[in-house]
């Protein structure tokens, strides 16, 4: 499903974010990405949906070579990926409902379906009372949940979640994990960066640990492995 071959990423300012990453994530896998902050987790994930391009190496997603992809095809590849952004990335001028609906308008879904489905996922993340609020009127945790709702609304085959529970209280965090497990159970591949030791150690999955841009550990039923 996702493959990286000797991937290096150096940002224009000279920061070496990734240094020779090789990885293979299979279809329907659930992978935690752990490591100290600044280790390169976000960069690792940004390369998967082509927000960033590797300085060196090749990345395949669903058999598409992301480096060779034509500009025109990129949107269609991205539609199969639901991204939960660490910094939420909500459209500030749209309401909660409109932000989620936008992802469906992009794929030209019928209006009625958009309404039904957007309501459904917003209820799932418990935001049904904030439909017409704007992002600036929401707490960090609420914005994070909008980002989650938007990522899952189109039932993508891959979910890339960058610290999706970073701003949530434990109870809500477990709620989100239930949703992700459910989606994973229905066949989606999930890559999730996290600092949540409890979750990683309780819901045991594959764990990839990155430090200073290098994969230092890759275990099938791994542990968090850091003292936070």
């Amino acid at each position: 499903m996702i493959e990286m071959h000797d991937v290096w990423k150096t940002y224009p300012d000279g920061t070496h974010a990734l240094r020779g990453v090789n990885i293979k994530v299979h279809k329907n896998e659930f992978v935690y990405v752990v490591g100290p902050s600044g280790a390169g987790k976000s960069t690792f994930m940004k390369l998967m949906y082509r927000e960033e391009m590797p300085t060196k190496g090749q990345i395949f997603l669903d058999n598409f070579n992301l480096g060779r992809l034509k500009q025109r095809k990129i949107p269609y590849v991205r539609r199969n990926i639901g991204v939960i952004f660490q910094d939420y990335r909500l459209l500030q001028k749209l309401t909660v409902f409109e932000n989620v609906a936008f992802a469906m308008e992009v794929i030209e879904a019928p209006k009625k379906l958009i309404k039904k489905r957007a309501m459904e996922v917003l209820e799932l993340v418990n935001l049904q009372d904030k439909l017409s609020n704007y992002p600036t009127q929401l707490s960090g945790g609420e914005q994070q949940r909008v980002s989650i709702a938007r990522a899952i609304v189109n039932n993508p085959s891959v979910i890339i979640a960058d610290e999706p529970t970073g701003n949530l209280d434990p109870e809500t965090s477990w709620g989100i994990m239930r949703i992700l497990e459910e989606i994973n159970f229905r066949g989606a591949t999930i890559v999730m960066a996290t600092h949540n030791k409890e979750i990683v150690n309780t819901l045991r999955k594959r764990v990839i640990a990155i430090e200073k841009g290098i994969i230092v550990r890759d275990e099938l039923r791994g542990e968090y492995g850091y003292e936070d």
Partner: protein
Amino acid sequence: MKIRTFVRHIREGVKSVFRNGWMTVASISAMSVSLLILGLFMMLAINVNQFAQHLESQVEIRVFLKVNTAEEDVSRMEFDLESMPAVKNVTFVSKQQALSYLRTVFKDDQSFLDGLEGENNPLNESFTVEVKEPRDVSTVAKAIENWDQQEPKPIIERLRWGQGTVEELFRWTEIIRNVGLVFVGLLGLTSMFLIANTIKLTIIARRREISIMKLVGATNSFIRWPFFIEGIFLGVIGSMIPASALIYGYYRLTQSEQFQHFLGFVQLVDWQTIAYPLGGLLLVIGLVIGAWGSIFSVRKFLKV
């Protein structure tokens, strides 16, 4: 693109006009101010042009005939003049008419004209020839003179068409027209640049939004359409405000007796004559700049 998507783009474009508060105000102001200046200059240019045309149309040829020219020669001359393709109108002025004209000119002291009636009238009979193209006046006058001289018995005593002065007049009206054209052109370009730049600024402010849309899977055209619609709306509003202001102001001006008094014999172009071309032109400029400005400025940020 599905119809519902197109409807969505229009809806979003219009909403965007209102959502982007100060940016909309900035774009519309920039456009209104530039187009107001452009329109003002155009009105001036149209009037100067009409005035130049008016001066030019006053140009005519007077053909004075020799005294005691036979009546059939006069009619033949009239027929010949009228059949010239470059000639618009020929009017015969008899001795009697010439005298009456002098009486109106010297109406306060016309005693010296007494006794010149009938047989004693020393004035020449003449033709007033109006040409279709004022610019041809010299050529036509010389042609008339030429073919009369080739007749066995020439009947023209002299021609008058403001030799020298006419050429000078045309030289000036030409200069005024060209300067006007260059000014309108320069102003047009400047306003285009100014407006496009403002629209660009408003779009740079939205580059974050654009990149988010792309990351969520939107195609370039999906992102572009609402901007395009928005640009068109800005264009319509930003050009109709100055157009209505200018046309209304001009209407009031043409109705003002004081202003007409100030202008003297210069006649203003009707406000109706100016309204349509001015409104139409400003609208077209507004639309083109609005649409082009938005499309062009978005382009850079789509490569996400």
